[in-house]
């Protein structure tokens, strides 16, 4: 087994791979190496910061709040902004359709969307960063099993 955080990341990537047809299965987890023309449009799933606290005194469970980021990359000329939003539609609806991420989490809620564009290259690059706040619970002694 792996850390529940990894299980969440992998489950989201699996869901998006099948649901977001506009990126033709180009869904990565924690992509840090540069993308290029052949890789786009694409999505990469990242698990960022996480805060946690003990559930209750006397209880050995940890309540965790994870920042899950989904980056959408688009390279386009004319309709770049529409294309970013079209992929966002598929991502948001896929995430909403699996609110508990396969039962691994208590909730997953979109808390912010940041969209930026860069027009310095041969085609316009658009990136949307969707940030979900994901709440999940593990025990203190077993972080490979979601509760």
């Amino acid at each position: 087994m792996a850390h529940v955080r990894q299980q969440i990341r992998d489950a989201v990537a699996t869901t998006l791979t099948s649901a977001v047809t506009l990126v033709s299965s180009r869904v990565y987890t924690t992509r840090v190496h540069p993308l290029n023309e052949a890789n786009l449009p694409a999505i990469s799933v990242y698990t960022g910061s996480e805060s946690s606290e003990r559930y209750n005194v006397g209880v050995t469970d940890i309540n965790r709040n994870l920042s899950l980021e989904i980056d959408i990359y688009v390279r386009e000329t004319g309709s770049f902004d529409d294309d970013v939003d079209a992929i966002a539609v598929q991502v948001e609806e896929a995430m909403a359709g699996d609110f508990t991420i396969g039962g691994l989490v208590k909730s997953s809620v979109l808390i912010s969307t940041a969209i930026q564009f860069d027009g310095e290259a041969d085609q316009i690059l658009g990136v949307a960063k969707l940030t979900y706040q994901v709440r999940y619970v593990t025990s203190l002694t077993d972080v490979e099993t979601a509760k």
Partner: protein
Amino acid sequence: MAIAFADDLDTILSVEEFAQTVTYGAGTLKGIFDNETVPMDAGGTAMVHQEQPRFTCRTTDVSSIASGQTLIIDSITYNIIAWLHDGTGVTTIQLEKQ
């Protein structure tokens, strides 16, 4: 002593040296085409490597330059997006591949 910049420019923009002739609207234009691959950052965690096509030519040869005009270079059509005049007679044109 004056620098013979005009002569240098003639040499640089000679098709016998570094330049090439491209299609500009209904006519032609001489200049130097560069298409460097550069890392672009638009806010994602990963960078994106993209080509950055630029065409450098005499400012006087593009006195009526405007957005939406096209250059055809090696059979590829590029839209003119923006341009920079350097103030000494040289213009660099930013291109978008179609």
